[in-house]
């Protein structure tokens, strides 16, 4: 027998035993006041130890915290609305969750059945999408899916940036409940609303999320991109490191006011916020919560924001360390499109200044150190002679 089927068998027996033992108690759990579990999934999934190691050796947790789930954005949705199938126990008929599934919830503004299909449509057309069937992107396994960014953040606490604290929640909720007497509903609505009133991640979290792919040199090279460790050479990143709340992270420039994270476009796209035509608007961020560079002018805003990285080094004919074993043709192709001769000139000038200063600092400090050391030795010798 294959180890997987053995595992399945084992799970099956354990589950059956639990089922038999707990049958009299089942109605009690299904009447939980935190979650209307009419499908009775929590009968098994309420056990924190529930899970297994899959074929790839990855730990899969099948536990669902009923209270957290009830408070999450999806709290009102039945399990099987998203987890299609699951008619057999053990669940051998599992389908991967498709976020475009219509989940039998009515979208209140149109009264149509709700799904994330429109977001996914935008997303697929964006720089992170898989391209079209006629023109698919290479290495689709590298491209992020919904859950790569929406990484279990449904269990969010209510507090967050810009004063949306637990205390504010307590006070506001009391006001809501003056009219909307059902607390759970009010909580969900508050949560739904306030999630959209703030950025859910602190700047360093955003950077961590984006760099989890974009700093992976192998992955980036496959797609003709360079690692964005170059962001960490900027003043923007230093501000984030100091915990400045107004500090600009990836989202601030790549998804500013009026844009959607699901619709990030390449720089060459005229609707991209970092397209040269839109830069002044992006840097000045007029009307946004973040106060960035309200006085930004075209000549300031059209310059380089990230430090020059691999592409500029390649174009300037420099050897780039760490890429020796990688296929860099794609990066080179893109570099030729992305970097104008002017940019390369600028890069070379900056490199030259850096080199000049390195030599100057090295030379000066060596001369000074040596001179003072000699002076010290001579003075000591003189003291000795005196005594």
């Amino acid at each position, binding site marked *: 027998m294959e180890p997987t089927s053995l595992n399945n068998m084992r799970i099956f027996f354990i589950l059956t035993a639990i089922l038999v033992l707990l049958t009299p108690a089942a109605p009690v759990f299904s009447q939980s006041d935190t979650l209307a579990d009419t499908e009775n999934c929590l009968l098994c999934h309420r056990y924190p130890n529930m899970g297994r190691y899959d074929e790839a050796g990855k730990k899969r947790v099948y536990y669902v915290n009923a209270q957290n789930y009830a408070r999450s954005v999806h709290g009102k949705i039945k399990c099987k609305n998203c987890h299609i199938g699951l008619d057999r126990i053990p669940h051998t008929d599992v389908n991967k969750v498709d976020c475009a599934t219509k989940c039998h919830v009515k979208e209140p503004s149109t009264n149509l059945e709700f799904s994330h299909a429109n977001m996914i449509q935008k997303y697929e057309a964006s720089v992170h999408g898989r391209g079209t069937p006629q023109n698919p992107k290479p290495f689709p396994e590298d491209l992020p899916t919904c859950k790569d960014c929406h990484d279990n953040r449904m269990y969010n606490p209510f507090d967050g940036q810009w004063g949306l604290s637990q205390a504010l929640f307590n006070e506001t909720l009391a006001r809501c409940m003056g009219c909307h007497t059902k607390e759970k509903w009010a909580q969900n609505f508050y949560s739904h609303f306030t999630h959209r009133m703030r950025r859910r991640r602190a700047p360093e979290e955003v950077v961590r999320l984006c760099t989890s792919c974009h700093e992976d040199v192998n992955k980036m090279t496959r797609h003709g991109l360079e690692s964005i460790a170059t962001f960490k050479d900027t003043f923007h990143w230093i501000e984030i490191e*100091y*915990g400045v709340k107004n500090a600009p992270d990836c989202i601030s420039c790549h998804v500013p006011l009026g844009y959607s994270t699901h619709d990030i476009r390449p720089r060459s796209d005229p609707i991209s916020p970092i397209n040269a035509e839109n830069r002044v608007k992006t840097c000045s961020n007029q009307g946004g919560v973040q106060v960035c560079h309200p006085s930004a002018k075209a000549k300031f805003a*059209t310059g380089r924001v990230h430090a020059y990285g691999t592409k500029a080094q390649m174009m300037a004919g420099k050897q780039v360390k760490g890429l020796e074993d990688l296929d860099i043709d794609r990066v080179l192709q893109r570099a030729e499109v992305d970097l104008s001769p002017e940019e390369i000139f600028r890069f070379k000038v*900056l490199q030259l*200044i850096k080199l000049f200063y390195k030599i100057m600092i090295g030379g000066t400090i060596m001369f000074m150190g040596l001179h003072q050391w000699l*002076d010290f*030795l001579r003075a000591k010798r003189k003291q000795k002679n005196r005594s």
Partner: protein
Amino acid sequence: MVNNELALDAETGVPSEAAADERYFVRLNKSERVQHMIFAACFFVLVATGFMLKLPESFLSFFGQAGEMLFRYRRLLHRTAGTLMILVGVYHVYYLLLKPAGRRWLVDMLPRLKDLKDMRDNLLYYFNIRNEPPEFDRFCYKHKIEYGALIAGTTIMSVTGIILWTQYEWSKFVVDIAALVHGMEAILASLAIMIWHFYEIHFRPHKSPLDNLWITGVINEAEMKEEYMLHYKKIMNDPELQKIFIKENPKRGPES
């Protein structure tokens, strides 16, 4: 060395060592000391608040919640100290050109062929090829190098600092150059001050642990003869210079 000094005394014809103990020589007058103090204070503030931008990532978590406030004050302090330093610099130019003491400073500070010879001879002295160091005037080659570096450094830092402060008026490329130069020059200046200047005032065997010249402005006759023999001789042979550079009773405080 005692013999040597006595011999030199005989050569210049100045009074014996016992009497010379009473006499002090002005190296920095009051204005120069005040200029130095403000400038030095600004320098420390600028170095501290400037290199806060270069602290390693792991260190910053130490600030925790205070980080944001620190960052705000960092900027305020850096710009205040920078402005003050530029003002001292501007005053110093005025002092050099329009005040008699400043003009004397400027003339004495100008590089001369003698400085190159002095440097060669002093290095030979360090290598024990010459037995005596050259006789230095009011400012020796070490001072002139440092002063030149200070003028150049302050100018570069001021110009690039103002560009960074007024970043919207410039193209990003100019701002990028200014940021790079400001950072690199800062490293150079800090290291130079640490190795060149701090050595002079802290670590030279007879100055340790800290020379108080920057407060009193004067040195005693023995040191004057040892360090600036040529200037000493000039002073001793010129009653006008004696009025300026000799302080008979330093207990009353140095002259202005």
